[in-house]
Structure formats: C-alpha cells, structure tokens
C-alpha cells in the first residue's frame, strides 16, 4: 500500500499500525478502500447500498483481530460510513477502528462513522477507537462517531474510545442495549483544546437480568474549548450500572456534565459520580517538589489522567 507520510502518521496514531497488520483488515483512505483482507473466520464485505462494510465474525472465533482504520488527508471531503459487525456466538475478538484527518486546506473534512455491533450469545468484543486530527489549514477536522451495541445474553463488550488531539468538532453518540448477564465496560478519554467543541452522549439500557455497565469518561478541556457530556443509564431489570464523569478544566474552557439515571425495577442499582475541577493543587505541588516545572507537572498529570 502506498501511503503518504500524513496517512502513515494517521494509521500509526489511531491504530498503532506501522505495516500490514495480522488478521483481517480494511484500510480506508480518502473515501476508498485501499487494502482489504478477510480471514478464514472473519469476512469483510463492502456494503452495496451505502458506503461501509459488513463484517462477519464466525461463531467461536478466538483471539483474532480486525483493523479498520480510516484516514482522510484531503480538504473538503465529507463522508458517512456504515460498518456493521456481526459477532458470532462465543467469539472473542479485538476490533481496532479509529480515524484521523489531516487537513491543511480551506474547507472542512468530515467523517461520520456509524458502527453497529450485533453481539451474539456468549461473545466478547474489545473495541478500540482513537480519533486524531492535524494539519494547520482553516478547514475543520470533524469526526462524528455513532456506536450502537446490541448485546445478547452473556456477552461482554469493552470499549476504549479516545480523542486526544486535533479534532475541531465532534458529536459522539454511544448506545447500548444489554441482555441477561451482559457486561459493558466503557473507557472514554476526551481532550479538547483551542476552540474545539466536543459532545458525547451515552445511552445504556440494561434490559437483561444481572446485566452490568461501567461507563467511565475522563475529559480535559483546555483553552476556550467546550465539552458537553451526557451519560444516561437505564435499568429495566435487576442490574448494576455505574457511570463516572471526571473532567479537568483549564484556562477558559467550559464543561457541562449531565448524568442521568433511570430505574424501572426495584432491583436496579444505579450509581453516578461526576466531578469537574481544575488540576489538583496537591498533585502539582508534589511534582514540583520533585523538580518539575509547573508546565511539566501539568502535562504529567494530564497524561496520567488520560491513561
């Protein structure tokens, strides 16, 4: 595959890919698939009606990986991509998505990625999604991901989603519906700077008996950036839900965190924790006593917080 330096940088940042990865993959660059491979257990097919992929993972597939990173390196490109993951019974796989935009031109480039996961009984999915933008043009780098999970009984999903740098505007939407004993763990990391805007909403519906959800969102807002975080957990059965929203506020940034819990069953246990504040003073002081400057200390604290 012939990648430009910017494209290489994107794939490196969003998917840790330096060369062709093992397992199934699809690389998308500027609206086109530039490399695709299916394996015996994992079949990747382009959709015929809209842009996107159908990814079928055979029942029982274990320890396999799917890479589907996306790069946009031109200005003025706007795309919507629909990827559906059908994860067969008892499978256990890692899916590495992520998108990076390099825009040094005058017009916005936008990627709207709509990912749906149909997770069949007993299957486990680890989903890693990183978003990244760079390039100094006037055009925005815009990423709007929608993630939907339909989790059957006894399934597990671990979502690690981060947006660390360079994305001017994002509207993130995550929805999940859980069956009996299904388990959802979400780790979201968001950092905004400059004039960036980020919105992230979660709607987790615990329908199944003994289903559990643990949604942890950590955010850092710097400069004059804005963030709006909405976390909703609905408990319709005997279930446990925990959500946590922790934000560090810097400079003149603004963060709105709206937790919401809806319980419709007497045995639903739902907890929400939320905290917004500046960098902890005692942490700064401690690191400065170890010889770091204030700036260095801040960056250590931020990096740790986003881990």
């Amino acid at each position, binding site marked *: 595959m012939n990648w430009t330096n910017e494209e290489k940088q994107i794939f490196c940042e969003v998917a840790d890919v330096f060369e062709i990865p093992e397992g199934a993959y699809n690389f998308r660059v500027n609206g086109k698939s530039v490399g695709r491979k299916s394996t015996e257990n994992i079949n990747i097919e382009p959709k015929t009606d809209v842009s996107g992929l159908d990814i079928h993972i055979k029942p029982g597939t274990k320890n396999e990986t799917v890479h589907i990173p996306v790069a946009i390196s031109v200005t003025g490109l706007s795309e919507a991509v629909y990827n559906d993951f059908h994860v067969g019974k008892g499978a256990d796989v890692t899916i590495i998505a992520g998108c990076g935009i390099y825009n040094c031109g005058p017009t916005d480039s936008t990627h709207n990625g709509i990912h749906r996961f149909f997770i069949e009984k007993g299957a486990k999915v680890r989903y890693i999604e990183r978003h990244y933008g760079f390039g100094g043009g006037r055009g925005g780098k815009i990423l709007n991901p929608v993630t939907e999970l339909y989790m059957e009984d006894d399934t597990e999903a671990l979502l690690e989603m981060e947006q660390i740098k360079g994305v001017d505007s994002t509207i993130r939407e995550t929805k999940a519906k859980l069956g009996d004993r299904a388990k959802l763990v979400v780790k979201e990391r968001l950092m905004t700077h400059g004039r960036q805007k980020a919105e992230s909403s979660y709607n987790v519906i615990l329908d199944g008996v003994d289903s559990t959800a643990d949604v942890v969102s950590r955010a850092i807002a710097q400069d004059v950036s804005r963030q709006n975080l909405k976390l909703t957990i609905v408990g319709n059965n005997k279930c446990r839900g925990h959500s946590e929203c922790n934000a560090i506020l810097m400079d003149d940034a603004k963060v709105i965190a709206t937790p919401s819990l809806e319980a419709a069953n007497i045995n639903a246990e739902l907890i929400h924790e939320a905290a917004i504040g500046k960098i902890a003073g*005692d942490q700064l002081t401690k690191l*400065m006593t170890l010889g770091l400057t204030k700036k260095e200390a801040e960056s250590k604290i931020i990096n740790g917080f986003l881990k």
Partner: protein
Amino acid sequence: MLKLIDIDFEVKKGRSRLKILDHLSLEILPNTLTVITGPNGSGKSTLAEIVMGIKTPTNGRIILNNIDITDKSITERAKLGIAFSFQQPVKFNGINVYDLLNIANGELISKEEASKLLKSVGLDSEKYLLREVNGKLSGGELKRIEIASILARNAELLIFDEPEAGIDLWSFEDLTRLFRKLKAMKKTLLIISHQERILKLADKIIVLEEGSIKDQGKPADVLAKIKEEKR
C-alpha cells in the same frame, strides 16, 4: 546549610490575622540530623512547607548554602537540592510507582535501581513497581512510596514530615536504620516527628510551640525536660 531568619507566617482569620509562625529563626548545619517536634498545630508542617516553598512567609528570609532562596519557586528549590516528604502523601491518576520514582530522579532509572529504592522502604517491587499511586494503596504503603520518592531525588537536604505516620511498628527499626544510613551518606536531615525513637537519633531536637521555638538541644537534655513537664 539552611538558615531561617526571623520567619513569620500569618493567615487571615475573619478580619484579624492569625500568627502561625512567630519570629522564628534557626540554623541547620550540614550533615546533621535535626528533629522538630511539638504539639499538633504548633506549626511544624508549616515550617517545612516554607522551606520547600509551598508556603510563602509573611516575613523573614530563608538561606540555603549562602543563597537567599526566599523568592525562589518550589521547582528551583528542588533543583537546589531540597527534597520534601509530605505528611499526607499525594494520590494520582495514571501515575505508577515506577513513573513517580523516575520523575523524582529526573532521569530514567533502571527497574533494578527502582527495586532497590522500594526495598529500602520495605516494599516488594514485584508487587508495587507498577501499581498506580492512587487511593487503592493503603496509608502505610503510600507513605513508604512517598519516602522512596525522596530517596530517588539524590537531594542534599531531606525533609521528612512525620515519616513514621502509618508505618507499622515492625518496620520502625528499618525506618530508623534508613535515617542513620542517610546521615552516613553525608545528607542533611530535617525530620518532623512525635516518636521518641526518632527523636533519639537527632543531633539536635527543636521543640516548637505555638509557632515559636520553645526549646532546643541534645536529645538527652530535651527529652528529659519534656518528661519532667509531663510529670
């Protein structure tokens, strides 16, 4: 090594001002072990924080090796060779013990070196090196890690604020041995403590009361006086 000259520290209390340290002067000679003791609230931690630059005195000067450091930042003082072990160790997110020791040292240290540091505070590095320095650690564990971070600094003047707090009785012996070893390494130590066994290690004990020095001298003399008063 360190001179405090006429230090005042005041805080606002409603309309009036509350004096926490009152015309305090003292000198700490190089390669000595000084223990500051005194009742709760007498100003011991405040004094240490003023030396480290965490608090700014209302009045007075701080001299380190003939340099006036009164207006220097915490970072500058750290770089000039002062290290400070907090009374209440600080907890972090996403920073593990190894990271902290590396930050403290200023350079990347090997895992072996880090293990040695942990061993000297009685922690098994297998178990602790990659643990996050957060609230999941016990008070005593955090305190030991805090002390290890000071040892990693290679500073000249080491200040420990109640190092014994939270450390179990069984390990007390190790802690006193550690202080003796540091002294043998030509370090200058300033330890805040309520523990007789640590007071006994001192070349000089300073007794603070309501922000002033009430007494100072050799352990035998000072301890005798304290015991006399208690009677």
